[in-house]
């Protein structure tokens, strides 16, 4: 009975910490992604020579 209560207490605290941490991390990641997306898309174009969004070759974007 005592061991069960201690285990439940530990698992409840684990659940709380994991869920809060995951949501905070997800929001931080979204903010960082919005700040860095342009440079990553430009690096992709520089390396592969075709647009990362519509896969058209150099400078002739499809409508």
């Amino acid at each position: 009975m005592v061991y069960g209560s201690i285990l439940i207490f530990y698992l409840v605290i684990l659940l709380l910490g994991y869920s809060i941490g995951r949501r905070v991390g997800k929001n931080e990641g979204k903010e960082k992604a919005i700040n860095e997306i342009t440079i990553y898309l430009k690096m992709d174009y520089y390396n592969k020579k075709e647009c990362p969004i519509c896969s058209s070759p150099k400078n002739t974007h499809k409508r």
Partner: protein
Amino acid sequence: MLLELFKKCTGLILLGIVIKLLDDEIDGDINEKIKESKIYASFIQFKMPYSLLFLSLAMLLQPHLVFSIFTSAYIIGMFHIPSQELPLKLKAYQEMLILVILNLVLVPLDVFGIAFFSILFIQLIDDLIDHQYDLKYGYKNYANIFGLGEIIIASSILLVVCFMISWFNTVIILSSGVLVNYVYTKI
């Protein structure tokens, strides 16, 4: 002692069959299973008399536990649609409240507790097993709403709570659930 065990096991297996038929009725994809097996097709033709007979027999063999498990399966099935209007002119959360009050009045508290928590545990394990399938086809799934890790930790909390209340009943309920599921896939 052995007679008690036999009555409990038989009652729970019959109740498992009834709940499985009820879930199939509500989920609505019976036709695929009908094409696959003949035993199921002939059973599903007379589902109403058979399920009423099995339910009343199970209720006689083990009155408190079977009633608690059946009503908590009803309640947990309604968690996804809390404000839908039902044919008895009550909303879904009102029906849930009536059933909970009935259980608290008529059934001892530890029996209701173990029934509710073990059915919730089985529901969470089912959601864990097919969370990819439900994500693809758009069914309601707790693991997709709340996240996979949270549901794993929550189901282990429920397992510890069920074991603390009564390990004997937990083992019997979970093993009869697994048995009914296995027979259903092999039939």
